[in-house]
């Protein structure tokens, strides 16, 4: 597989990741969100593996495997179990309506492209054009967190944001050093545990996972 083809495949994967990011933004059903999230993880993992193969960097395989296990299997599974156990409503409500969100999302993609333009010029890597997508994914994840009302969807948005970061790491620099990658993965794992605990805590204290319950601490009166 020569570099050119790898780059093309990578671009396709990047497009898919962007698509899934938008999918997360517009998806109303919660299981649907989980599926899309898992797909995004899969694309990310494949992309990492391909970059690792092309660049001959073997530690990227480890990253890819980590991504695969964490983002494709473990986290969606944990979330699935939690949602099931906590009997969370299947429908997801948005704060802002979906067309508006999409428009904002598109604007963010353009903005990311504009921002990464100078970096693209500098880079010599095959993956350089995908940095914009990575940044866009980060921003879309953030946008998702802002527009969603449920604790679970916020977490999914947060994880999507992390995916974007991960993608940025591989696309801009062929991955961070292994120590860092491992550490990041560990942190994500701990975070997953913590939000798991949190769901139960929230659930027991508020009888709901709706974030509306958690607006008591404020300065207004």
């Amino acid at each position, binding site marked *: 597989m020569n570099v050119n083809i790898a780059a093309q495949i990578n671009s396709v994967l990047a497009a898919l990741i962007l698509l899934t990011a938008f999918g997360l933004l517009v998806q109303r059903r919660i299981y649907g969100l989980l599926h899309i999230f898992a797909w995004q993880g899969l694309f990310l993992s494949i992309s990492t593996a391909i970059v690792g193969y092309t660049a001959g*960097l073997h530690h990227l395989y480890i990253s890819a495997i980590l991504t695969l296990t964490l983002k494709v299997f473990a986290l969606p599974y944990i979330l699935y179990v939690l949602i099931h156990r906590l009997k969370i409503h299947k429908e997801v409500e948005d704060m802002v309506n979906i067309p508006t969100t999409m428009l904002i999302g598109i604007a963010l993609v353009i903005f990311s492209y504009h*921002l990464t333009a*100078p*970096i693209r010029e*500098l*880079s010599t890597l095959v993956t350089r054009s995908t940095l914009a997508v990575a*940044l866009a994914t*980060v921003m879309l994840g*953030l946008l998702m*967190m802002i527009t969603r009302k449920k*604790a679970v969807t*916020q977490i999914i948005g*947060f994880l999507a*944001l*992390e995916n974007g*970061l991960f993608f*940025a*790491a591989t696309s*801009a*620099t*062929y991955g*961070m*050093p292994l*120590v*860092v990658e491992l*550490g*990041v993965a*560990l*942190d994500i794992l*701990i*975070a997953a545990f*913590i*939000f798991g*605990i*949190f769901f139960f*805590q*929230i659930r*027991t*204290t*508020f009888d709901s996972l709706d974030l509306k*319950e*958690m*607006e*008591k*601490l404020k*300065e207004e009166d």
Partner: protein
Amino acid sequence: MALLTVLGVSLIAALILAFVGDRRYAPEINIFGSAATFAASIFLALQVYYNGPMLAGHDFFFVDAFNVYLSVLTAFVSMTTALFSRRYMRHEREHGKVGRSGMRFYHAMFQLFIFAMLLALLTNNVGVLWISMELATLSTVLLVSLYRTPSAVEAAWKYFILCGVGIAQALFGTVLLYFAAERVFGEGSAGLLWTNLSQVSDKLEPTVLSLAFVFFMVGYGTKVGLVPLHNWLPDAHSEGPTPISAVLSGLLLNVALYALVRCKVLVDGATHSHKAGYIMMVFGLVSIMVAAFSLLRQKDIKRMFAYSSIEHMGIATFAFGLGGPIATFGALLHMLVHSLTKSSIFFTVGHASQMHSTQEMSKIQGLIRGNPLVGWGLMLGVIAIVGMPPFGVFTSEFLILTAAMKDAPYFTPFFLLGLAIAFAALFRKVMPMVFGKAPDYQRRLKAAHIPVFVHMAVMLILGLYLPSFLSEWFHTAVRLLK
């Protein structure tokens, strides 16, 4: 060796306490662990003092004047906080606010948190710095929700999400930094080592670095509690157990600012402009102003001092942004003295709220008559924190303000306004609590007096006499951060 002890003891203590944290002797283990860490950190500091900056563990650790004093500070405050938490947590346990597992969790996470902060300070790897910052957040998230009250859970959730998102942006910044470094160093860990980066910072690509700085600013700025990224801070401080508030305010914010400043040095080196400095100054100033005005309307005592922390972090950020030898010196000193003062305030605040079974300030009265130590401790703490001599905060604010008058005179009116409002707000609230007659619902309490005394003494000494080794360190750090 000292370095390994510094990091290892707290990690081991965390592991031990995870199992025995609910026993009667657990607080002693906690104290012992922190004391050992502190002793080791002093040893480390002596090494650095005599031998200069050192690299260790295959360049994985780097100890210089900047981070060694923060490590000693971290170890010291964690030790005094551990001392304080012995009495404080016993009281909480006796009043049924925490269970056995809660105590275990508390002790283990306390040590883990200390470990994370020390790792963040001592590591040479910018990536590991990020990881340990995240670890520090994660270890305290569940401590904030320790009491399981609705507001505690809410506060913890906000802390978790906001800091999580914030720190994720810092990761993006790290990626960009690595990207820039790779072009100089090529593939591998070398590109993330701060010692390497700082040597070649002028070769790094300025556009990338200024972009990276934005992400660092937003990311670590969230943890520093800079406005408008600060919203988690008052919630988390007010709802968690007081020892945790003390270390969050006193230490975590410092460490986050440390991370930000390390990054700023690289960016400045690359861009040869003062842009990062200006961004920091604006953030600092906005934080000072917003925190000061927010202080005016507080009802909850811990929330109030949380805002005061925002204000002081704003001051330090402003000073680092200002740059120049005197302002940077002032900023370094400010981090030190703010941390000591604020944690000591939180100690007394914790006791005060225990005495009245509430954190509502209108119900806390007559502290001096009820418990002179707590009352005077709080009063003097507030005097110190608002920047009155002979306490250390005055010294740093003196340096920062005079330097600001020279380099950024147009900012000083806002600075002055913020300081004045904060002063008025704090005193307005604290005076009725400290003075006056003790209400009948006030409880007698055995206060943990040693930590308060020790902090007060150190604050006083630093206000009147800055030891020469400290100032040498600061001067070295100033040269480093130039």
